[in-house]
């Protein structure tokens, strides 16, 4: 039995070991370090299924900052799985890193590019467990700091530099909002621990306006992380300019962690009536903006950026209804289909471009990749028997139960928009002729396996969602002991 905090420590130490080893080994192919990172993270992921039960929450010390409840453990696995796929993508992206990083040695910078996501993963895992504003702030900053570096990594490319500067400035601004909001909340309640803030709020003995002000400021910062309208302005440029594996990491890892923190923070604050209304407005705006702005896009990464805003809207519907399980399931579906699409983008962009027209006739150049992209797009659009459909189904189901008719109506209309822009990509791949000189795309066995796994996941969870639903609401422990 492994104590839960050991997971992060192992991830962190493994990252340090790889970083150190990379500094002393010159001759080796640096991709070995990515493989080593993947092996280490897979080991931790397996280890996360043999966790010791956590001690009860304490009022001070370690366990007042850190929780090991099912939600935390679920999202730790989520972060680990995301990082594993990101590292696999990063191996395929290595040639582009060589072009984008100034260096005498052709392998310059590769070691850091493979090691930094491991530190980000540790940050995401801490975020999943954070139950105190101090801990939320520190782990969020660890994640953001490593993303500053990763987004700007291929700095010879002007678009990447632009993306890096935009991300740095806007993200720093949003951090400012977060800290300022936390100080207001602390000023009113005298606590940073979410459970104790909840206790103060339950007593109804506080100043409403200053507390709402503080909460709104925190919401601004979290809205930035999850790319909710009107805090989404950075998303299209940063997603388009950043190295593709980093874009995938931002759109899955950073967003999921943002939603976990949002769910945790909403716990105590949900008793304020204004909070629900505010979230409904944000969700509606996000749905409308993300889906309609995606319609005219011609660059696939930019299209996926707007699609990521749109999906934040669907997730926010789940958050408004406090349907934690539905949100978690949607995020798993989102992980599978988004990583699948970005994995294909990395492989196709290696000897093509990122415009949708570069995908013309992809089915002739690589039927496997075209099929993978088809599954990804179909699931993003939400066609039955895919994880994307069931995710939307659970979210809308929760919304109908809560009587959020307006959000359901907007959601259904915007799903219709989604069909148009996702199917545009499918049309290019299957109906348009390929350019004459387009080479056949080579795929490494590792990526082929990863893509196959993602496709399988989309279909398996699209018809059999029980494993994920049970992970968050574990069946009574009595049944487990009785079975032995």
């Amino acid at each position, binding site marked *: 039995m492994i104590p839960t905090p050991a997971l992060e420590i192992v991830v*962190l130490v493994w990252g340090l070991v790889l*970083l150190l080893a990379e500094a002393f080994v010159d001759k080796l192919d640096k991709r070995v370090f990515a493989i080593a990172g993947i092996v280490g993270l897979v080991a931790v992921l397996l280890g996360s299924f043999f966790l010791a039960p956590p001690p009860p929450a304490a009022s*001070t*010390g*370690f366990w*007042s*900052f*850190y929780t090991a409840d099912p939600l935390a453990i679920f999202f730790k696995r989520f972060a680990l799985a995301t990082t594993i796929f990101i590292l696999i993508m990063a191996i395929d992206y290595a040639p582009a890193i060589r072009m984008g*990083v*100034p*260096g*005498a*040695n052709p392998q*310059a*910078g590769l070691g*850091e590019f493979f*090691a*930094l996501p491991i*530190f980000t993963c*540790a*940050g995401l895992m*801490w975020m999943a467990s954070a139950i*105190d504003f*101090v*801990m939320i*702030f*520190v*782990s969020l*900053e*660890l994640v953001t*700091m*490593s993303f*500053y*570096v990763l987004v*700007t*990594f291929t*700095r010879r490319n002007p678009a990447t530099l632009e993306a890096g500067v935009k991300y740095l400035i806007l993200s720093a601004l949003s951090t400012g909002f977060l800290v300022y909001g936390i100080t*207001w909340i602390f*000023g*009113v309640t005298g606590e940073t621990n979410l459970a104790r803030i909840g206790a103060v709020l339950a007593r109804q003995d506080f*100043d*409403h*306006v*200053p507390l709402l*002000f503080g909460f709104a400021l925190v919401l601004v910062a979290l809205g930035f992380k999850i790319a909710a309208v009107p805090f989404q302005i950075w998303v299209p440029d940063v997603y388009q300019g950043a190295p593709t594996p980093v874009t995938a990491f931002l759109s899955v890892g950073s967003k999921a962690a943002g939603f976990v923190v949002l769910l945790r923070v909403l716990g105590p604050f949900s008793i304020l009536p204004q909070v629900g209304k505010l979230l409904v407005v944000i969700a509606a705006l996000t749905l409308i903006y993300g889906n309609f702005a995606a319609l005219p896009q011609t660059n696939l990464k930019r299209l996926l950026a707007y699609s990521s805003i749109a999906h934040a809207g669907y997730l926010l519907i789940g958050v408004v209804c406090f349907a934690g399980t539905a949100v978690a399931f949607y995020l798993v579906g989102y992980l599978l289909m988004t990583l699948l699409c970005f994995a294909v983008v990395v492989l196709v962009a290696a000897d093509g471009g990122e415009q949708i027209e570069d995908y013309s006739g992809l089915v002739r150049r690589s039927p496997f990749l075209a099929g993978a992209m088809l599954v990804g797009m179909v699931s993003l659009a939400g066609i039955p028997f895919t994880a994307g459909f069931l995710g939307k189904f659970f979210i809308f189901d929760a919304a109908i139960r809560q009587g959020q008719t307006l959000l359901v109506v907007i959601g259904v209309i915007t799903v219709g928009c989604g069909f148009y822009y996702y199917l545009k990509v499918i049309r290019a791949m299957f109906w348009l002729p390929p350019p004459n000189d387009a080479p056949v795309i080579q795929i490494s066995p590792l990526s082929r396996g990863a893509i196959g796994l993602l496709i399988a996941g989309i279909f398996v969870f699209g018809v059999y969602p029980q494993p994920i639903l049970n992970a968050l609401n574990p069946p009574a422990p009595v049944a487990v002991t009785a079975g032995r």
Partner: protein
Amino acid sequence: MSPVFFWLASALMLLFGAAVIMNRNPIASALSLVVSFLGLAALFMSLDAFFIGIIQVLVYAGAVMVLFLFIIMLLDLRAEERRKINLVAFAGGVAVAVIFFGQLCLVIGHLRQAKQSFPALPLNHPDDVRSVGLLLFGNYNLPFQIIAVLILVATIGVIVLSKRELR
């Protein structure tokens, strides 16, 4: 603490804080920021938080500002002075600032603590270096350790992003 001291230090802080954004010359802005930090340090001292006051001077007014000045020296100052003010952006920025300030006043008007005076501090001064240390390495040990990881990542990032030629 004498109220005169409080008003003096606050006025100093706000005045030079405004000067930071009003000045066209970046060096003058940076030096105004130093004075603003000194005012803040004086406020901390007057609240008996001597350790934080000293750290404010040493770290912010000292180390961080030297860093700022170094960076400013690497920039092209003339370009900044020649730059014209974009009126629309200026008006927008002022509007946002005014709205935010108004909102802040409103919120403070609703704050109970703002209407009552705080109880006087006990006369026996606590050993604040010791208390800060105990808090950091005791209760707040986990976040403190994560900050160490954060700084490591930042260090790696600076090297990766700033070296002219990576090896």
